[in-house]
C-alpha cells in the first residue's frame, strides 16, 4: 500500500515538474564581457536565460550552436529560451563585441 502511494506521489511530482516554469539562469553583460562566461545547465530541460545588459551600449546575444540571436539594448534585460539540449558544449558570443564577449553553455546530464 505504502509503495503504491509513494509511486503515485512520485508520478504526481514528475508530472507537476514537467508543467512547472522552466528554471531561470542569469547572465550579466558588463564591459562587453559575459558573467559568468560558463554556465552549466541540466540536459534535456528547457531553460530560461535572463540576460542583463549592464553596459550602456547594445549587444546581440548570438549562438550558431544554440540557433539563437537577440538584440539587447543598453541597460535592459532580455529573456531567451534554450533547450531541451543534449549534453555538450554550446558556445555563444556578443555579436557587437565578439572579441571580448564570449561564453559557453555547458549542458550536463545531472546539471552539476
Amino acid at each position, binding site marked *: 500500500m505504502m509503495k503504491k502511494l509513494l509511486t503515485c506521489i512520485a508520478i504526481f511530482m514528475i508530472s507537476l515538474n514537467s508543467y512547472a516554469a522552466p528554471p531561470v539562469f542569469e547572465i550579466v553583460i558588463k564591459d562587453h564581457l559575459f558573467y559568468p562566461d560558463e554556465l552549466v545547465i541540466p540536459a534535456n530541460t*528547457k531553460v530560461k536565460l535572463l540576460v542583463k545588459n549592464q553596459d*550602456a551600449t*547594445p549587444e546581440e546575444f548570438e549562438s*550558431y550552436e544554440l*540557433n539563437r540571436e*537577440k538584440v539587447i*539594448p543598453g541597460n*535592459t534585460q532580455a529573456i531567451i*529560451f534554450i533547450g531541451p539540449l543534449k549534453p555538450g558544449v554550446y558556445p555563444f558570443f556578443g555579436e*557587437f563585441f565578439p572579441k571580448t564577449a564570449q561564453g559557453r553553455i555547458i549542458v550536463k546530464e545531472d546539471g552539476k
Partner: protein
Amino acid sequence: MLLNSVILVLREVLEAAMVVSLFMAFTTVSQQSRRFLIKAILLGLIAGATYAYFLPEVSNWLEGVGQEITNTAIHIGIYCCLTVFLWLISRDINLPNQLVKGMMMTAIILAISRESAEIMLYISGFRSDHFLMQSVLSGSLIGLGIGVSCGIFLYHLMIALKPAPAAKCICILVVIVGSSMMSQATQFLIQADWLASSNPVWDSSHLISEHSLPGQLLYALMAYEATPTWSQILVYLTSLLLMLIVIVSGRFSRSIQHD
C-alpha cells in the same frame, strides 16, 4: 573593431540585398521604372530607424518576447508579399500594376527594416566613443559596399539572361528566399517558446559551418542552419510547396482564361 563591423554589416546587408536585387532585376526585365523601388528602400530605412528606436519597449512586450514576435511577423509578412507577387505574375498580371508594385515595395520595406535596425543600433552604441566610431563607420561602409556589390552581381547575373528565363530564375530565387523567411520565423517562435523546441534533426556543421563564408552566404539565401529542428524543416518545405502551388495554379487559371 573594423573587421567585426565589416562582417556584421555585410551579414545584414546580404539578406536585404537579395530581395532588392531580385526585384531590381525583375523591373529591368519588365522594362519598367525602378523609382518605386528606391522609394521602398528609403521607407525601409525609416522603418528600420523607428524599429531600432523603439526596440527597448518592443522587447518588453508579451512578457519579454516582443522582439521575437515582431521579427516573426516581419518574416511572415515578407513571405506573404512574395507569395502574392508570385501569384500575380504567374497570372500574367505584371508591372506597372499597382498591386504588384505594392507587394514588391512592402517586401523590400519589411526586409530592410529589420536588417537596418540592427545595423543602426550597433553603430549608435559607439556614439560616445569617437575613436572607435571611426573604425566602426569605415568597417560598416566596407561591409555595406561588399553587400551591395553582391546584390549588383546577382542583378547583372539575372539581366544577362533573356527575359523569359530571367523571369523564371527570379521566380525560383523568390521561392527559395521566401521559404527561408518562414524558416527564420519558426526559429524566432521557438526562441520565444511559442513553439516547442526539439533536438536537431542533423548536424552538418562539419560540412558547412555557419561560421564560414559559404555558411553565411547560404544563410542569406536560404536561412541555412547546421542544426535544424523538425519544425523548421517542415515549415520550410511546406512554404516552398505552397509557393510552387501558387505559381502552378496561377498559370493554370491564366490558361483557362485564355481558352
